[in-house]
């Protein structure tokens, strides 16, 4: 498809397990963003990639969170030793650059039991 693709769409896991969330941006979009949407906190920025580098990781809530992007395309957000407060919808967005509209995927709904 032509849009941002995220997988899985839903993920249920036990507290303490590691999870990986995947984002496939729109082809040609060099900027990639991860956001988290939760009931208590709304929509929060997590990390920004320009190409394969991440010049802004300021939104990652703890060192249990990490992300990488390879080949200037697919990105993976990894959460280690998941906690119940990690339960949220994780949204990925891509754009052709700063100051340009970001296009969002449908998100991964993560539930920690």
């Amino acid at each position: 498809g032509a849009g941002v693709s995220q997988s899985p769409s839903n993920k249920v896991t036990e507290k303490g397990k590691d999870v990986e969330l995947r984002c496939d941006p729109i082809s040609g979009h060099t900027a990639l963003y991860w956001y988290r949407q939760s009931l208590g906190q709304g929509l929060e920025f997590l990390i920004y990639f320009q190409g394969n580098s991440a010049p802004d990781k300021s939104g990652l809530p703890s060192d249990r969170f990490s992300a990488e992007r390879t080949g200037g395309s697919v990105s993976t957000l990894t959460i280690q030793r998941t906690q119940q407060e990690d339960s949220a919808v994780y949204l990925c967005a891509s754009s052709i650059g700063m100051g340009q509209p970001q296009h969002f995927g449908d998100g991964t709904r993560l539930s920690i039991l």
Partner: protein
Amino acid sequence: AQSVTQPDIHITVSEGASLELRCNYSYGATPYLFWYVQSPGQGLQLLLKYFSGDTLVQGIKGFEAEFKRSQSSFNLRKPSVHWSDAAEYFCAVEWGSSNTGKLIFGQGTTLQVKP
């Protein structure tokens, strides 16, 4: 800290009535302004954007928004609401000084449409 405020958490309007959703942002140079809409279980869809120029911008689905620098506002309007407009609406701001393009979102306004 830079912030975006949507004062109305929930709004109910009758189908065919006009709509205005409010958005205010904290002071900052060169804001880029966006409105997104989110239906249940889906991602955010861009309704419209303001970068510069004409302060009244037109978007998809019959929406428009007006940027008022003096009031730090970017309110979303629609002359006649349709039942399919029921969704959650988010105002978002990118400050040009951020050098990352990250969006700061308001808390969202849930729109309910009465038949």
